[in-house]
């Protein structure tokens, strides 16, 4: 029983990490149909910048804010320097540009920071909280809380605010959006900076658990992408549910079957879901008008 509880808590922790990364994909995807493969690098930048700002003597909260702001700027730069000049290119080309950007950011981080693993202290100490015979770290609660907070924020942004609706409109039909007075260039810049900021926030929250180095982005982006696909790309609810589901699947497989098959089982389930529901669990059904 307490073993099951531990597996659940572990699944929630890992799942919330995936969900946070997956949530970062949604805004850019909603604004442009582009899956931003540099999302993992935003997470890495958030973690690494906080580590170095904190090591330079800044208090942790300030270091975190600086990291998020700087990463948002990197997001804007990515849009201005790489995506905008290629405007009008097919979505596939834009996706390939983001892959290039991710390689570039990783290389730059290797030079600007270093190649070592880093960590900064947990926000609320390392004393585990005992719960029905299982143990969870306070930092895990921060990650879970962060995932839910970002989810509610995004949900409110897309459904309650005019700006959020403008983002959706831009994705839907850029020309029509311009015709009704939406500044689509600004919407793109906004969505890249928001995505980058969410990625950096994820990095700040998960670093005490997962540790950070210049090359952690790829692995995180891969799992986050899988989670987003499972839940339905572009839907914040899908990202949250997909992430936590993926984490729980891995933990349960590791606990009850074998840790050898952990990733395999998770990906088989994703394939099965996508086979039956190609848009993911909560994905919008697309109908192409001919």
């Amino acid at each position, binding site marked *: 029983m307490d*073993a099951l509880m531990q597996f659940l808590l572990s699944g929630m922790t890992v799942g919330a990490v995936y969900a946070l990364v997956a949530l970062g994909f949604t805004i850019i995807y909603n604004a442009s149909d582009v899956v931003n493969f540099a999302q993992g690098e935003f997470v890495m930048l958030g973690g690494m910048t906080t580590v170095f700002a904190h090591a330079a003597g800044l208090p942790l909260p300030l270091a975190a804010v600086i990291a998020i702001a700087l990463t948002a700027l990197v997001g804007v730069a990515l849009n201005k320097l790489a995506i905008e000049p290629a405007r009008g290119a097919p979505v596939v080309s834009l996706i390939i540009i983001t892959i290039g950007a991710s390689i570039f950011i990783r290389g730059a981080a290797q030079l600007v920071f270093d190649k070592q*693993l880093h960590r900064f202290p947990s926000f609320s100490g390392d004393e585990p909280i005992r719960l029905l015979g299982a143990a969870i770290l306070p930092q895990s609660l921060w990650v879970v809380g962060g995932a839910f907070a970002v989810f509610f924020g995004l949900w409110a942004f897309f459904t309650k605010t005019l700006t959020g609706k403008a983002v959706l409109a831009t994705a839907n039909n850029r020309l029509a959006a311009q015709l009704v007075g939406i500044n689509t260039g600004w919407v793109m810049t906004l969505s890249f900076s928001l995505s980058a900021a969410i990625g950096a926030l994820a990095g700040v929250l998960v670093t005490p658990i997962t540790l950070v180095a210049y090359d952690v982005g790829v692995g995180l982006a891969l799992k986050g992408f899988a989670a987003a696909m499972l839940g339905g790309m572009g839907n914040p609810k899908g990202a949250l549910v997909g992430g936590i589901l993926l984490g729980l699947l891995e933990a349960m497989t590791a606990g009850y079957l074998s840790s050898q098959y*952990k990733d395999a089982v998770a990906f088989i389930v994703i394939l099965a879901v996508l086979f039956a529901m190609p848009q993911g669990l909560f994905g919008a059904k697309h109908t192409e008008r001919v």
Partner: protein
Amino acid sequence: MKPVITTAMTTLVALGVISLAAPASAEIRLGASVSATGPAAFLGDPEAKTIEMLVEQVNEAGGINGEKIELFLYDDGGDPNKARTFATRLVEDDEVVAIIGGSTTGTTMSIISVAEDEEIPFISLAGAIQIIDPVRDYVFKTPHTDRMACAKIFTDMAARELTKIGMISGTDGFGASMQAQCHDIAAEHGIEVIADETYGPQDADMTPQLTKISKTEGVQAILNPGFGQGPAIVTRNKAQLGINLPLYQSHGVASDGFIKLAGAEASEGVRLPGTALLIADILPDGDPQKDVVTSYKSAFEGKYEQKVSTFGGYANDAFLLMTSAMAKAGSDAEAIRNALEDTSGLVGTTGTYSFSANDHLGLDLSAFRMLEIRDGGWALAE
């Protein structure tokens, strides 16, 4: 003439050649290909720095028997294909008489094929036992094998009467290889592996695996072969779950960075096999390795403002072996190879090397020290 020289220089720089083009009259041409950047940069970076530093030292001191060393150093970025290209270039264009390098087993294997074909002595800096088993004429290596790490750990476990153990291994190359080697020799040491779990190199939480191991009936200790963030997370998770079993880590995490990442509290009592270099400060004065490790450590840390690592130590030892062979044999490749094989009792940072015709590693278990983490620092467990 001038434009030609400029072009040649630019090409050399573009190719990433860092050569100390000292116009010495007689020189010994030494080649090196390490992974100074890329995924294995944590290995290759200190190795490249060590080799550059040592070449400088030797040349400042007047060279080997009056002959300066000319170094041709390439960065293969951890890519075996590049390593093969650079090895070929070292032999054919740079006409080196010996090669040091191969930070990873993959790049080493590429260089081996060139070194064997061209009959150039080569000292590898990678771990796998396949490099020197079977023995190849021109190939030597300085790091101990993961099989020896397993043997060292199992010997210590047996001495503490811990015979039933659980293993949690990384699925990366290092973890998987060591896991297999440990399984191979467990029975010889009277150790029974009764739980065997794995984790991915990027995993964030290993509590399910650790819960499973700790719930296995009769388990007395946990062994975690792996490197990178995995072992630090395993150590933290074990403390989080309050599992009260002795934890053994591998030589893959034998660095101060590990204690920092895992936290002093969580890593208290963790044991692992490491080299003398790691405990240079607490090594007793009479220790045969004391002088070698302290002089390398102070030279490296003085020059680069960066902590020494075991990996830089491998390069240091390879360079010592190579130059002492060159001192005896001059600059003939075949003579250097023979002198290398005759090396006996050469004290390095990793251990004391004695090569022979059927042993091109030349280290025994005494090269490993069983270390224990106490109060956030290293202590000798023996």
